[in-house]
C-alpha cells in the first residue's frame, strides 16, 4: 500500500501497488489515472470508484496485478464530508452546470433540515444524475445530457449507513455521509432538497474514507512523484 508512510524502495508497480491518492479539485478521475500513468509509465492501472471533478479526496488506485483487487476496494462503504447549498438546483446537481431553479428558503428551520435526514437513512432508491459516467445503450449518459437529451436512467438501491448534519449556515449546510458502493452523493443531496419542498445542490465534497482507508494517509501528485523519483534513485544505486 503506497501511502504517506511507505518506503520507496519496496515499490513495484508492475507486480502491483495499491495507492491511496488525494484527488485535487477539478481533476476528473480519468485525469488522475492519465497523470499517474505519465509519471510511472505503466499500462495497467485502475481506480476503485469515480470521484467527480468538483470533489476532492480519497481515491484508491491499483497498478499491475493488483488491478485484480479493485472490486474488493470498490465494494467497501465510503464516507464523505461536504457542503450543500439550499434554495437552488442545477442540472448536474453540483456547480458543473449553472443554477436552473431557485427556491425561497426563508421557511426552512434547523429542525426541519435535520429531521429530513431521517428519510435518507438505510436502504433507499435513487436515480443517478443525468450528468454521470453511467452507460446506457453503450453511451455515457453525460454525453447525452450535455447535448440536452434526457435518457431514462433506471433507479438503483443503495444503503446510507449514516447521514449527519454537522453545521447549518443557510443557505449552506455541512454534512457527513457514509454510504454503500454506487451511491451518488449529488443525487442524495438533490433528493434531500426535494424532500424539503426546496432545492439543493452539492457545493463542496470530499471523500474522507473508503472502508477504513483514510484520506489523511493519502498522497498527492507532488508526493507521488517524489516517492517515485527517490525509488528510481535507489534502484540506480
Amino acid at each position, binding site marked *: 500500500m503506497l501511502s504517506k508512510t511507505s518506503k520507496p524502495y519496496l515499490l513495484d508497480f508492475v507486480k502491483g501497488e495499491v495507492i491511496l491518492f488525494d484527488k485535487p*479539485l*477539478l481533476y476528473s478521475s480519468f485525469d488522475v489515472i492519465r497523470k499517474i500513468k505519465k509519471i510511472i509509465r505503466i499500462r495497467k492501472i485502475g481506480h476503485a470508484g469515480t470521484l467527480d471533478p468538483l470533489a476532492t479526496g480519497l481515491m484508491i488506485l491499483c497498478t499491475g496485478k493488483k488491478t485484480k483487487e479493485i472490486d474488493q476496494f470498490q465494494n467497501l462503504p465510503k464516507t464523505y464530508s461536504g*457542503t450543500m447549498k439550499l434554495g437552488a438546483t442545477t442540472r448536474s446537481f453540483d456547480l458543473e452546470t449553472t*443554477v436552473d431553479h431557485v427556491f425561497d428558503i426563508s421557511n426552512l428551520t434547523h429542525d426541519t433540515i435535520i429531521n429530513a435526514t431521517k428519510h435518507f437513512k438505510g436502504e433507499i432508491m435513487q436515480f443517478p444524475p443525468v450528468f454521470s459516467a453511467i452507460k446506457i445503450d453503450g453511451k455515457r449518459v453525460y454525453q447525452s445530457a450535455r447535448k440536452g437529451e434526457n435518457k431514462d436512467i433506471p433507479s438503483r438501491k443503495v444503503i446510507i449507513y449514516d447521514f449527519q448534519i454537522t453545521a447549518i449556515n443557510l443557505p*449552506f449546510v*455541512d454534512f457527513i455521509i457514509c454510504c454503500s458502493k454506487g451511491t451518488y452523493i449529488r443525487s442524495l443531496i438533490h433528493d434531500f432538497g426535494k424532500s424539503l419542498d426546496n432545492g439543493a445542490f452539492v457545493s463542496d465534497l470530499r471523500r474522507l474514507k473508503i472502508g477504513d482507508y483514510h484520506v489523511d494517509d493519502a498522497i498527492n501528485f507532488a508526493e507521488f512523484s517524489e516517492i517515485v523519483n527517490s525509488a528510481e534513485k535507489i534502484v540506480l544505486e
Partner: protein
Amino acid sequence: MRVFTNKSNLRSELPNPVVTLGTFDGVHLGHRKVLDKLINVGDKFNREVLVITYWPHPRTILSPENDIPKLLSTLENKIYLFEKLSIPNLLIIAFTKELAEKRHDEFVTELLVNTLNVHSVVVGYDHRFGKNRTGSFDYLSENSHSFNINVFEVAPFMLNNVPISSTKIRKALIDGHLDYANQMLGYHYFVEGKVIKGLKLGTKINFPTANIALDFAKQQLPKDGVYLVKTEFDNLSFFGMLNTGENPTVKGKGRSIEVHLFDFNGNIYGKKIKISFLKNLRQEKKFSSVDELKEQLLIDKQTSLEIINSNSF
C-alpha cells in the same frame, strides 16, 4: 511573492490569471479555504494565480465614523500572511469613495474583463462588490458566459456550527475569548508596535516592562487583561506577560500596553516588536498594594512557565 499596486500593466505580467478578491482582514481559516481553492484552480488550468485585496478596509471609507471597525491586520501584516501561505501574486487596490460608487457590472467589466483579462474567479460565499454591495457569486455565475470567466464559489468554513468571519474574530477578541479567536484565525493573533519609554515602575518591583506604542492605533487589541505572549524583535524571540488596560493599581498612569519579557535583560527602546497573544492569564484587577500586585505577578509568571513547558497554547 510579487506585490503589485498598479493594475494597468499587470496584463503583460499575468496574461490570463485565476483571481480571488476580498478584504481578507486577518487572513483567517475561512479566507484560507478560498485561497486553497484559488491555488487548486490555478494548478488545474495552469494559470498564474492572483489575490486582489483592497486597502484601506472598505468599511473605514464607507461606514459612519462611530461604526468603523478596528482591524485584525495592517496592510503589512496582510502581506506577511499571504507570503506565508505561498501566494505568488498580490494586487493591492486602493479603496476609494469613487471605487465604491461603481456599479457591480461596471466593476466586473472594467477590472476583471478589460484590465486583467481574468480566466477564472474564486469568490467566498459572502463576498460582495460594486455600489451598495449588489454584486455577488450569483451575479458572476449567471453572467459567466458573457464575461467568459469561470466562476467558483467557496462555502463558509464552519467552526462549532458557526461560519468564521473577521467580525466574529474581532468580537471574540473584544469579549476576551482569545482561544476562540486564535482557533478561527489558524494562528496566534498578533500586533506590531514600537517600544517606548514608560514610567519604569515595573523595574522597582523586579518586573521591568517594555511599553508598547502600536504602529497602527486602529488595530484591534484583545480585551483588557493579562496575557501570555510571544515577542519578536531583531530576529530574537522571547516569551513574556503582557498587560493591557487602565492600570488600576498605579494611580494616574492611564491606558497602556506593557510587556515583561522572561529571561531578558537589555535595552530595546525604539525597537519594532511583534507580539503574539498565546493565552489569556487573567483579567485586569485592582490591588490594594504594590506588594500584592507583585505577588500576583509571580503567580502569573509561574502559570505562564507551566503553559510554556506543557506547550498548551
